């Protein structure tokens, strides 16, 4: 499976490329919110009026790709929670109006598949269309689905694959009570140096054009793997088998992109993976976007920028990426429970 294009709406200025030029947005609040594009510029008001934040972000990230690429054969989205703001609005109506007469827009927009459906509608795309909601593996699942889709096609084909997660009071409050966020307020510049419990809540949409053939592509997604409730040993074994399947040695991986989140309880997983690759350079991405369940899609965006030789000199790129990498391994985990691996290889 080949990567042809990538775009992100994120807490950084990714939508107008100044992020690539070294721009860095400092966030000093309990949540790292996206820098929105001007959605009204490209979404008709008749559609925009109904859209929740997740759908807007998703379309905002997918639209530039759709404009500059041929029509795809389908749309696959990963999102752990979909349109939460609409969800809580509807939920609050249920209670506030005591199950009385309620407005349906919030309900329709709150379903996680609303984004994939809206993209199909806006681009008149009756092709393959699936939404994966498998928590922090939703994006990895979307990629595997794409791989399977290509394996059954006779002709060269392409897909939009992406992920979105939005911050709402709803998920913030729930995840805060579940112990996922830090009690103290931290700047994103300091996030990865922290070792207290929890991380900081982020959000974003990252979209990709993936294709079955290498034509016009700049990277190959060689493998997408997942583990649930593994031991450290099982993770090491899986990484070894992933490399073996792709005929790679440990030394062949020249960069790691890691989902370290400043959560002292689980960051040991990243150190463990780093130790498996003593010669690889490595970097992190949650200092840019915070923690959310489909943040690995931003990890892939960052890796994709790195193999395109953008961002290598970004001043806030933590770790030590000194050159355009050839083979990148992405690793992310959430709660220490779900672990995802994506192997990316530069083509040119």
């Amino acid at each position: 499976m080949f990567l042809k294009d990538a775009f992100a709406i994120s807490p950084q200025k990714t939508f107008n490329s100044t992020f690539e030029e070294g721009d860095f947005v400092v966030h000093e609040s309990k949540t790292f919110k996206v820098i929105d594009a001007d959605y009204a510029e490209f979404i008709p008001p008749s559609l925009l009026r109904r859209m929740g934040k997740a759908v807007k972000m998703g379309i905002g990230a997918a639209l530039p790709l759709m404009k500059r690429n041929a029509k795809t054969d389908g749309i696959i989205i990963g999102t752990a929670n979909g349109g939460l703001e609409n969800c809580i609005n509807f939920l609050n109506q249920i209670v506030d109006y005591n199950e009385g007469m309620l407005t349906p827009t919030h309900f329709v927009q709150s379903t996680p598949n609303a984004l994939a459906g809206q993209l199909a509608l806006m681009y008149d795309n009756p092709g393959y269309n699936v939404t994966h909601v498998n928590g922090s593996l939703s994006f990895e699942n979307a990629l595997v689905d794409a791989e399977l889709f290509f394996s059954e096609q006779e002709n060269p084909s392409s897909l939009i694959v992406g992920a979105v997660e939005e911050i709402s009071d709803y998920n913030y409050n729930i995840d805060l009570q579940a112990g996922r966020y830090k009690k103290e307020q931290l700047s994103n510049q300091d996030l990865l140096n922290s070792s207290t419990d929890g991380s900081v809540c982020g959000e974003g949409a990252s979209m990709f054009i993936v294709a079955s053939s290498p034509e016009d592509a700049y990277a190959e997604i060689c493998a997408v793997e997942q583990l649930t409730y593994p031991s450290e040993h099982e993770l090491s074994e899986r990484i070894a088998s992933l490399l073996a399947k792709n005929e790679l040695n440990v030394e062949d991986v020249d960069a790691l992109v890691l989902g370290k989140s400043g959560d002292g309880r689980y960051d040991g997983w990243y150190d463990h993976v780093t130790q498996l690759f003593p010669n690889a350079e490595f970097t992190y991405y949650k200092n840019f976007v915070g923690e959310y369940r489909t943040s690995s899609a931003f990890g892939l965006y960052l890796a994709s920028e790195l193999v395109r030789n953008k961002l290598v000199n970004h001043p806030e790129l933590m770790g030590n990426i000194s050159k355009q990498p050839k083979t990148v391994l992405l690793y992310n985990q959430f709660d220490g429970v779900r672990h995802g691996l994506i192997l990316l290889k530069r083509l040119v």
Partner: protein
Amino acid sequence: MTREEVIVEFKNHLIQYLNLLDTTPEQINNEEPLFGGDLGLDSIDSVELIVLLDREYGIKIKNPTEGRQILVDVNTIVDYIIANRTK
């Protein structure tokens, strides 16, 4: 309340409930069909309008089919509001 005042009030509710971005009351023509016209309203909006009439004017409409004769344009709705409002 004069009919003119009800019209303006209703149009403001309409804009708020349907989140008609960048639309002002003046831009909505009283005779313009709400559905199938420039406003681009659809079946979900018809239900939103039924909720609007219930919450703002205490008017109960059971279903979109019953609403079809009433939810034609601003004039027909405002006439119905004036005749049937309970608040």
